[in-house]
């Protein structure tokens, strides 16, 4: 067993893309010293600080909460701050920008497509009627909160999009995180926005584009389980199509 303070060296291949030259991306290899507690992110920071200042990548919190450091590590979408170099040594490590997204520079991808999709699902509470602050908070029971809690844990890291082959093949697919967040609000007892979101949910690029590969839920660092959000809504979408949802709500079921 290696001592926790011992310094070892690992080789990291990083995909580089320079928009100024416009040349196709290529791998560049760096030799990075690391200890037991060195994350892949800290490894990248070592490269930037000591070996090559031109390397571009995103990060902020260093503790799996901001969602900005997602990369492909040996082909698997992961948060680089949540992954450790010790688990790859003595083999080499390959780091690519998140799959399926256009590269802006090196490991920084363009999230615009996701931002617009997120926007399209109206990711905010749509209450039955607005009430003044003086009337206090909208209340709900712990049981009601359980219905959406895990979906509200999404940090928009986009690992699920990089994991989804359907998104790769058909980029118009609304995709895992946006649909999970759509469900997060639909499942909230304080929200009545179902019909405002139904166009996105029911469309071909909504839940029906999903073929239940399920890898999104595997890679999600926050156990959001987007595959569950999407697939339970295939049932809801079908009920909606046959008018059953409306019927149920008029007799007081659902919300």
């Amino acid at each position: 067993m290696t001592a926790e303070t011992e310094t070892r060296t690992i080789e990291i291949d990083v995909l580089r893309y320079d928009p100024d030259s416009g040349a196709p991306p290529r791998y560049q290899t760096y030799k990075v010293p690391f200890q037991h507690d060195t994350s892949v992110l800290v490894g990248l920071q070592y490269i930037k600080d000591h070996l090559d200042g031109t390397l571009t990548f995103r990060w902020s919190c260093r503790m799996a909460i901001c969602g900005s450091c997602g990369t492909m590590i040996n082909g698997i979408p992961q948060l680089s701050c949540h992954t450790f170099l010790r688990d790859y040594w003595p083999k080499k490590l390959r780091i690519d920008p998140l799959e399926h997204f256009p590269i802006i520079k090196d490991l920084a991808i363009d999230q615009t497509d996701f931002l617009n999709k997120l926007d399209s699902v109206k990711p905010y509470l749509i209450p039955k009627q607005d009430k003044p602050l003086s009337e206090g908070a909208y209340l709900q029971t712990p049981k009601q909160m359980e219905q959406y809690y895990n979906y509200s844990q999404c940090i928009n890291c986009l690992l699920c999009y990089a994991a989804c082959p359907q998104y790769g093949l058909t980029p118009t697919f609304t995709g895992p995180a946006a649909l999970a967040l759509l469900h997060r609000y639909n499942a909230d007892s304080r929200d009545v926005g179902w019909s405002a979101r139904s166009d996105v949910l029911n469309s071909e690029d909504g839940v029906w584009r999903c073929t239940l590969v399920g890898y999104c839920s595997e890679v999600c660092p926050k156990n959001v389980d987007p595959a569950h959000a999407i697939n339970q809504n295939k049932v809801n979408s079908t009920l909606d199509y046959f008018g059953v949802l409306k019927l149920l709500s008029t007799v007081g079921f659902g919300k």
Partner: protein
Amino acid sequence: MSGRFKPAVKTYTRPVTGTWWKENPFFLVYMAREATALFVFIYALVLLSGVISLALGQSTYEAWQALLTTKTSLVFHLVLLGLLAYHTYTWFKVMPKTTPQIDVAPQTIVKTGVLFTAGLSVVIVAVLFGVTR
């Protein structure tokens, strides 16, 4: 998708290759689920050929029955049975992803589904055996 956020001006888009599913064992398992669906279709054709031969008259139907009892046919059916059983299992495996938000462990949902189907299959086989002998 268009919207109020505008994409970066200059980017590089990596192509999706036709071999994406070979690059991750998770995708191989997914493809095995999708590919075994083909054998459900093939078995449906076997049953359909039986119905057609029945419609064509007694002698054709008897010939079809005789064909089923050949060694090749038995081996073929055994292989089909294996593949169909696997395909069925894959759908129970993803069943927890389709249920509403309930307080039951995913593994319990899978096990219940598989056990129920296995039990029902035994009952059906027993009944058919009793009826046809």
